């Protein structure tokens, strides 16, 4: 009883200061991880903009967090013609239309362990937004907690978001970043976040997906830490200490640059988020990933299973 009372009082005190996003994250959690309790108190805060980036069509429309708007990752956040991330001009338009200004706290969430929400956070960081957070546990946890959803679609007055040229230090390219590491000319930690079977070359693509690369295996020197290990069973991020230990046990301590990749760069953006935004390491996400690397002529791979595409 006493605990509840103290809790209520603390909440009341906090909520009076909640006009500006407070550093309300519990101990041992980074600021970049938005806690559901905090978000629930800031749903109407004009300085907070909530964005849902989910994969399942219609899921946002049938109910989303109050005042959340929707970004569609495969059209809003990418340049489909050039196989590139959305360009600065279009991203600027998108963000301004969403009512985002330079001082807006952007909170992203999505289905499937925030898979695409993390991609969105990566894009926002590349284009220089200062306060970008991902909702802990994403949509699944929010629903499981029994928190409210609405179907009302909000509209906002245009924001004054000003785009930067794009932070190249967050994005790895094949020629400039990945190949030099693969050929051991430059030292960096490569993290392959796909399943062990994909990493070892037993399979060419995860089940349910088409083969999009003609070789199986991984980039030479990469270590395998599947992306699911970043989160607890309920989809929330592990604590800072646990995450630090998880990567330290595999020899990654943030002392040298890190490159993350997967199949198309989406899931690895979650690991990018964990290492860069929670642990504060220097990390580049390689969005070309295995579908670029595995298909490129004249670059070496490591295939522990020795599978050859097309061979019996």
């Amino acid at each position: 009883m006493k605990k509840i009372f103290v809790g209520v009082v603390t909440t009341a005190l906090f909520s009076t200061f909640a006009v500006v996003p407070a550093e309300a994250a519990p101990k041992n959690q980074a600021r970049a991880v938005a806690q559901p309790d905090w978000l629930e108190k800031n749903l109407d805060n004009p300085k907070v903009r909530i964005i849902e980036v989910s994969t399942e069509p219609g899921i946002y429309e049938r109910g989303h967090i109050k005042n959340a708007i929707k970004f569609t990752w495969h059209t809003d956040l990418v340049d489909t013609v050039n196989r590139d991330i959305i360009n600065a001009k279009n991203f600027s338009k998108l963000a301004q239309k969403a009512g985002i200004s330079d001082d807006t706290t952007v909170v992203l969430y999505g289905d499937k362990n925030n898979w695409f929400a993390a991609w969105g956070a990566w894009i926002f960081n590349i284009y220089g937004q200062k306060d970008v957070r991902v909702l802990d546990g994403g949509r699944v946890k929010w629903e499981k907690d029994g928190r409210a959803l609405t179907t009302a679609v909000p509209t906002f007055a245009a924001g004054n978001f000003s785009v930067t040229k794009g932070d190249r230090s967050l994005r790895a390219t094949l020629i400039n970043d990945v190949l030099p590491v693969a050929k051991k000319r430059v030292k960096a930690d490569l993290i392959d976040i796909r399943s062990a079977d994909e990493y070892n070359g037993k399979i060419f693509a995860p089940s349910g997906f088409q083969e999009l690369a003609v070789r199986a295996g991984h980039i030479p020197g990469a270590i395998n830490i599947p992306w699911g290990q970043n989160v607890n069973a309920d989809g929330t991020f592990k604590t800072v200490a646990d995450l630090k230990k998880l990567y330290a046990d595999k020899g990654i301590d943030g002392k040298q640059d890190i490159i993350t990749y997967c199949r198309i760069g989406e899931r690895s953006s979650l690991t990018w988020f964990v290492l860069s935004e929670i642990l504060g390491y220097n990390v580049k996400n390689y969005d070309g990933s295995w579908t670029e690397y595995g298909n490129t002529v004249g670059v070496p791979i490591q295939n522990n299973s020795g599978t050859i595409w097309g061979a019996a």
Partner: protein
Amino acid sequence: MGSSVITSQSQQSSSPGTTGAAASLWTRAEKVRTSISFGVISLLLLIAFLLSSNTSNNTAPISLLIGVSLGLLLERGRFCFFCIFRDGIEDKNTTPFLSILVAIATGSIGYTLIFGQFLPDTSTDRLPPVAHIGPVSWVLALSAFTFGIGMALSGACISGHLYRLGQGYLRAIPALIGTLAGFVLAFLTWNWFYLNAIADAPTIWLPHYLGYSGSLIVTLLILLGVAYFVIKRGVNSEPIRNGISATTLSGALRNLIMQRWSPITTGALVGILGTIAYLRVEPLGVTRQLSTSARTFMKNNGIGPETLNGLDRMAGCVAVVAETITNNGWLIIGLVGASFAAAFAGGRFTLSKLTPKNSVTALIGGVLLGWGSMTSLGCTIGVLLSGTQAFAVSGWVFFIFVFLGAFTGIKLKLHTIN
């Protein structure tokens, strides 16, 4: 059947209120049958309740409830597309046809309400999520026409067979087996049709050109025009009943169970149900679970092409590979169960005669239904109703050609071969 005991008790507890003249409306057999039917419905509701505590699929219980409602509506309103077409063509009784038009009208009003929120801006290339808006090509005309022939030959469309299964119509069994075979056939021919026509076919959605209000007005005007024509053609039409008159609750309940519901009421409720289904789960449709089973069977046995080009990006009752009961599976279970309950209570449950001849025609008709619906991305519910309600031109094209197919089948007397 523990649940039927519960209902008999509740029946008893309510009996003091229905003594005297009203109670004598019911024969003893009717009371027993109705109690058993209430038991079946209670069991379905209990399953929905149990499903709701299962977190892995949170739309399963509502899908089951939508199925129960659909089963009741189809059975009580005799909302069978083939029967409706045949009444109009053979007997010149076009009143039942109005139920289809009313269902499209109420559904399109409901869809307008939802679309306005799901996709406020119709000027972009985007389509509202998962609405059944399909590509329009000669393939759709062909598959809809084939479906119409299949209806005539097998005696019903797919939803018709499902609810008539609940009435004891045994021909539905070979027909549905044929439908599964038809799906397999459609998966084998899909890639050819996709590459030669469907891939380049336009997906025409009226609100892109007319906005929501314009599309709704055009749809309602078309429906009015069709209704005018249909009413004029109906020289033997039965009068449209204005609901059911009864002075007591018991009498009203008896009428609900015994007498066919008015086509206007049925149509309106089907339209509302379609709206609810789209809002909460996905557009109304009855083929997804069946075609999913067919596709999973093929995959597990290595039959047919590994990839079905473009299919998974299509909007409609598109099969996926799944081992479990999908939402649509729960809908089907609810539909058949509720239809049985409604038919049994009303004394309409009779096991029909199954002969080798009428089994074969049902089977062949079923193959045509399966091929036609898979290639059209849905059937009379999934494309005709859910498509026209969503302002998809594909829905109207399907409507026209399925009618022409059924018309041809009836003129060729295919439905009398049994």
